[in-house]
């Protein structure tokens, strides 16, 4: 008997994660059929893309994959990128379907905007290229931020693991010496 397929652990979050991305893409593609005004297309698409950026960065990143990134300026006036992640056991317990959805929709949306950008380039539509450029940069920022955050989390875990092994080794050696 097959084990039951793991379901999405956070269906609401997944929905919102996909909703704004899809809405921005759909609106951009379909709006040419309905609206004549470039201004409305621009404002609504960019607004949806900005909302999507915020949702991914602050909500679905946290809930679906347990990662978060942001930028701070320290006392010396330098900009520092900060990454935050849940500890390893929580990360391991994350729903696989959730994280699969998270990463793949991120990549697919960026690829879709890239293709739309190529189309508008071919048609020499500079203003639509502007819209695509803005949406693409928002998506790219999220992808880069989360990828860096994931790598950082892995690095942290490896450091922690090696530290634990080193300290355990040390304590074993010490106890061995005390016994002797």
């Amino acid at each position, binding site marked *: 008997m097959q084990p039951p397929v793991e379901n999405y652990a956070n269906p609401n979050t997944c929905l919102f994660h996909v909703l704004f991305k899809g809405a921005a893409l759909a609106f951009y593609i379909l709006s040419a059929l309905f609206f004549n005004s470039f*201004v409305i297309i621009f404002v609504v698409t960019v607004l949806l893309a900005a909302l999507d950026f915020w949702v991914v960065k602050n909500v679905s990143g*946290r809930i679906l994959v347990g990662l978060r990134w*942001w930028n*701070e300026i320290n*006392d010396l006036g330098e900009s520092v990128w900060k990454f*935050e992640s*849940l500890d390893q056991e929580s990360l391991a317990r994350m729903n696989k379907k959730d994280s699969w959805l998270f990463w793949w929709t991120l990549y697919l949306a960026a690829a879709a905007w890239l293709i739309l950008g190529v189309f508008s380039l071919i048609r020499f539509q500079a203003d639509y290229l502007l819209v695509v450029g803005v949406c693409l940069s928002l998506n790219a920022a999220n992808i880069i*931020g989360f990828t860096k955050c994931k790598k950082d989390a892995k690095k942290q875990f490896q450091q922690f693991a090696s530290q634990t092994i080193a300290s355990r080794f040390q304590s074993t050696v010490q106890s061995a010496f005390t016994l002797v």
Partner: protein
Amino acid sequence: MSHNDTIPLYQSSQSDIDEIENMMNAGFQSGPGTVLPARPPSPIRPSIPVSSSPFVQSNLPPLPPSSSSAAQKATPVPAPPSLPPAVNFGSSEGSKTTGFGSPPNTLTEPVWDTVKRDLSRIVSNLKLVVFPNPNREDPGKALRDWDLWGPFFFIVFLGLTLSWSASVKKSEVFAVAFALLAAGAVILTLNVLLLGGHIIFFQSLSLLGYCLFPLDVGAVICMLKDNVILKMIVVAVTLAWSSWAAYPFMSAAVNPRRKALALYPVFLMYVSVGFLIIAID
């Protein structure tokens, strides 16, 4: 973008309700003549235990984003989409905190907290940059918490206002205004950096965006009243206000001998936006 307030671990308020109930019961039993004891201090909410998760890196520094990439929020916009799910997230977050071992602060806060934090950051950044306040004496510190949501909203708003005031070629006006302001902010930042100034790229973008607020106000006034003389006066006043707002930050960033080189292009950009506002009819 920074998270400079320690947010306590989200817990159900059951403990508070119990406390209040106990207080009420004690009050009823102690009779009308006695004075109710002062509210006992609320139980110490467990702070995040540091030991078990060494790579909880969010040691919240004692600084005042954004950031953030940043971000910005048109005030009516975040409320509709995030209000219904905020309730769900809030409750689901509450139940989830018990599931995770020792979650870091900002990773498990309810969504509504994040929204409120971002909104208040926009407002405080605006007040810092555009209105007179003592923090302007130390410009480097003032916009530590940069965020791009405010500038985004102001640029779009200015573009929309200009586009609305224009009787012809509305789309072109909007596109030109948006591209001019966005590209202008980037180029001005690069100018400061190339002059050997010390400013963070996003901090400067954020600053230049926030300084557009007076011009936004001016554009709205010019849209409502179509008198040329009034427009010129309003634009002149708001232009001066914008330049005054941007001055300390830009001048502090560069070598004193190169102050004029850094400030002149900023002034030029605001003048050109001012002309755009006057010329649109």
